[in-house]
């Protein structure tokens, strides 16, 4: 980088100061831009291009088919099934994440003993590998030796062990549950950070005005959290919608296609059905669905950030 500085200095006498600064700024962003073009923009554009071909994965040989991939997809039951599965998974896990996240943020905001240990334990699932999270839950869910079935039978909630992963609607419930468990800490973190900035005197004033704890929650806490919750819900909706690892590892999309979301469908088309063009078409359509949320985040997320 000393080179960059030196270069800017060397051409100094020729150029206006503001031009020099502009060039230096461009030079600093250049590596980022180059990498972006190579590994993100180029693949993104070629994904759209590839979706117009039929490509056989093992040989990577392809032929132009125009919009046929899209036509076939939009007419196929599997695609729309994946879309609705994706919506159910996203809405289900998102609602749980937000409810759990807000509740636990409120709890961890209180003065409990060993609070920082409690916070670490709660936040940890978010930072652990999805692979580990899923393995752990598969062991908990295990139909024969899993602790969940035994605990529920011991409590008298059921009499025979349940198949948590291999049957419906259990598989969807399990996926949603594990998703909520893995990702609700994100909501906790964001809400907790916001809670810490609500001034105490607001609560004191409300208490003096006769508000009970519920009144204080609905009149002060919730309105203060509105903005952060809006952003968190948007972000999590985007991230949950494109989740692959968790579902793929937990159910593999099964039983049959009951938990097969769009990202799993992309993978299946590309590497199981060996049809990369079709897979790209699924990916492009999926991105179009997500674009709405992204634009929302663009418009409101950045406004609230600054």
């Amino acid at each position, binding site marked *: 980088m000393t080179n960059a500085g030196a270069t800017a200095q060397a051409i*100094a006498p020729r150029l*206006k*100061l503001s031009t020099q600064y502009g060039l230096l700024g461009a030079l600093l962003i250049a590596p980022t831009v180059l990498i972006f073009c190579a590994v993100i923009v180029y693949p993104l554009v070629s994904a759209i291009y590839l979706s117009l071909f039929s490509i056989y994965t093992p040989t990577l040989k392809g032929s132009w088919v125009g919009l046929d991939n899209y036509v076939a997809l939009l007419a196929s039951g599997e695609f729309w099934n994946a879309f609705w599965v994706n919506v159910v998974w996203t809405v289900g896990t998102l609602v749980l994440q937000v409810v759990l996240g807000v509740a636990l943020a409120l709890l961890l905001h209180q003065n409990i003993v060993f609070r920082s240990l409690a916070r670490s334990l709660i936040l940890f699932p978010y930072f652990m590998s999805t692979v580990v999270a899923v393995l752990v839950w598969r062991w908990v869910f295990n139909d024969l030796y899993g602790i969940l079935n035994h605990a529920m039978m011991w409590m008298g909630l059921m009499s025979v062990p349940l198949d948590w992963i291999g049957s419906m609607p259990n598989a969807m419930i399990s996926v949603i549950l594990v998703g909520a468990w893995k990702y609700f800490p994100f909501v906790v973190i964001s809400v907790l950070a916001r809670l810490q900035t609500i001034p105490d005197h607001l609560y004191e004033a409300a208490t003096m005005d006769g508000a009970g704890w519920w009144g204080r929650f609905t009149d002060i806490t919730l309105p203060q959290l509105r903005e952060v919750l809006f952003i968190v819900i948007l972000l999590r909706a985007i991230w949950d919608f494109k989740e692959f690892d968790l579902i793929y590892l937990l159910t593999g999309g099964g039983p049959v296609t009951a938990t097969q979301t769009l990202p799993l469908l992309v993978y299946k088309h590309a590497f199981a059905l060996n049809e990369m063009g079709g897979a790209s078409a699924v990916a492009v359509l999926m991105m179009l669905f997500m674009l709405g949320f992204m634009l929302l985040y663009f418009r409101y997320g950045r406004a609230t950030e600054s």
Partner: protein
Amino acid sequence: MTKVTFERVHKAFGAFVALEELDLAIRSGEFVSLLGPSGCGKTTTLRMLAGLEQPTRGTISVGDRVVNELPPAERDLAMVFQSYALYPHMTVAQNIEYPLRKRGVARAVRREQVLRAAAQLQLEALLDRKPRQLSGGQQQRVALGRALVRNPAAFLLDEPLSNLDAKLRAHMRAELIELHQRIGKTMIYVTHDQLEAMTMSDRIAVLDQGRLQQFDTPLEIYNRPVSLFVAGFIGTPAMNLVKGTLKADGNRLVFDAGGLSLELPPALVRRDVLREGGIAVVLGVRPEDVLLATDGERATVKVVEPTGHESIVFFDLMDHTVVGRVGPDVRLAAGEPVGLTLNAAKLHVFAAEDGRRLNADLQPPATQAAPSLVA
């Protein structure tokens, strides 16, 4: 010794004009304040001089050198920021030493100069501390030390005292004046506090909405403000300003405002501005020129604010609120009827339309002491 010159310097951020065609010639060794409300362009002016912003057009010179296209490092100026901008990860000594290090001064010399600057500002005991361990006043001194240490062509100070409490501010003001007298360097001082500007400056440049209003000595600005803005901005309590009509009636000059009618000295305003049927003006009078007089206009006392050495009194004069200051021995009570006259030698007249000064101002401002107040 360095003069600093702005020639038709213009700065726009997009459509917003921050500074309009500024012409300003600061003499070598002068202490000049750039004074104005926030957003008036004073900080932009200073930052352009420092090289932190580029003017849209115009020429800025330090000494005989045009500095427009020089990076800040090569302008040989020192700057004290409102936030102090001390480097948080460096000790006090390292902070003060930094400009010397950047100039390649030898280690031993650096050490000696840091110690000397520290001694001047009584910072010796704090040299190994980090900025966050210092009080606001101490941080302020370190910022000054960092500027002092390298003997620059001129000092730029951007509201350096505004983050201090009132007492410390008064103290630092005196120290800065003393410092300027001792080193005799050109100092350019940005402030929104007219008291600071009045007490410290050789000359004050008053800015408003990106335009230079007046550039003159403090007394001249106080006594002969060129515009309504300057008149209202300088002085506490602020000058009384009453809107009304000014009419020439033969040899007499009459000011009418609601129920209030005053006869003014005939030579007060320039004859050429007067129109048939009168012109809309704003009459200004400083609180110290509102005088108690038994035979004056009838007024009522509304509020009295004693400060100890004087009292600020709000009068009701024909439904106009007029502020005056009276001596500590004058006892007035709210509701009390009094008589008021205005010091005819010190009246200010401004055009209501554009705020420019209309006084003839042929004679120099009255030099005799203000007549003592009569109860």
